[in-house]
């Protein structure tokens, strides 16, 4: 029966960052209409929660899919160091020409964590506030949260 089961490990991380939603392809008026308060030229910030899900075989010797120490340091290095207490627009090169919506943030974080060596990245879920969250599973057919 165990062979028919899939086990995933989920881990939550937090970072605080500012952003401004603004597209150079839209006029001032359009930016204001589309992005509303989020278009404020001085930006604003959020306490983001990033949920990382990985899957794989549970190693019988350790009981683990992946050692949390490895996952924590990988996420710290690949994402948190560059994102925490930063301006996403100004400090993260990927958002120089891409609007730092939480949709795009999910995709960027997925790209940065995809190469985690000891387990398969299933999906990224980013909570921008307690009331909204976004998920991205790349090409994983089973990655989308049910």
């Amino acid at each position, binding site marked *: *029966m*165990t062979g028919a089961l899939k086990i995933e490990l989920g881990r939550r991380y937090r970072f605080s960052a500012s952003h401004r939603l603004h597209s150079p392809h839209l006029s001032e008026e359009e930016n204001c209409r589309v992005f509303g308060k989020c278009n404020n030229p001085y930006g604003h910030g959020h306490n983001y929660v990033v949920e990382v899900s990985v899957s794989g075989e549970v190693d019988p010797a350790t009981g683990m899919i992946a050692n949390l120490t490895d996952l924590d340091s990988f996420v710290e290095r690949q994402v948190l160091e560059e994102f925490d207490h930063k301006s996403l627009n100004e400090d993260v090169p990927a958002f120089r020409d891409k609007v730092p919506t939480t949709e795009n943030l999910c995709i960027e974080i997925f790209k940065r964590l995809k190469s985690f060596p000891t387990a398969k990245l299933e999906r990224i879920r980013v909570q921008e506030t307690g009331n909204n969250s976004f998920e991205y599973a790349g090409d994983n057919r089973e990655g989308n949260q049910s």
Partner: protein
Amino acid sequence: MVLLTRKIEFAASHLYHNPNFSAEENRRIFGKCNNPHGHGHNYTLEVTVEGEPDPVTGMVLDLKELKDILEREIMQRMDHRHLNYEVAELAGQIPTCENIARIIWQLLEPKITQGRLHRVRLYESPDLFADCYRNGARAARKS
């Protein structure tokens, strides 16, 4: 198909130690979790059952019945217990979130006869959890 989820909480102690590893390896691999006196968590378990609502009762399964199953199979077995020493199903296994979630699936799956067990999610803390589900369940639900 409708998914129904019930949440319960239990408190238990555990430690991570593999007798085949040296003391140094145990400390390196398991870190703080290798403390020989153990430590504990407030676990949160979310059990999700899938099924079609019964046309007469409107229920996938009677929540009271699910509550009784969880009380009998999980609470009585794990609440205020030491997972290494008192839960027979975990004997010889490291009681990680992954392994406990799998054991919980195996305990609950045959007991849920109305609807079908869809997912077990076990939180060891708000920031760490394991999901157990049938291989392919997510793909199937997408189609």
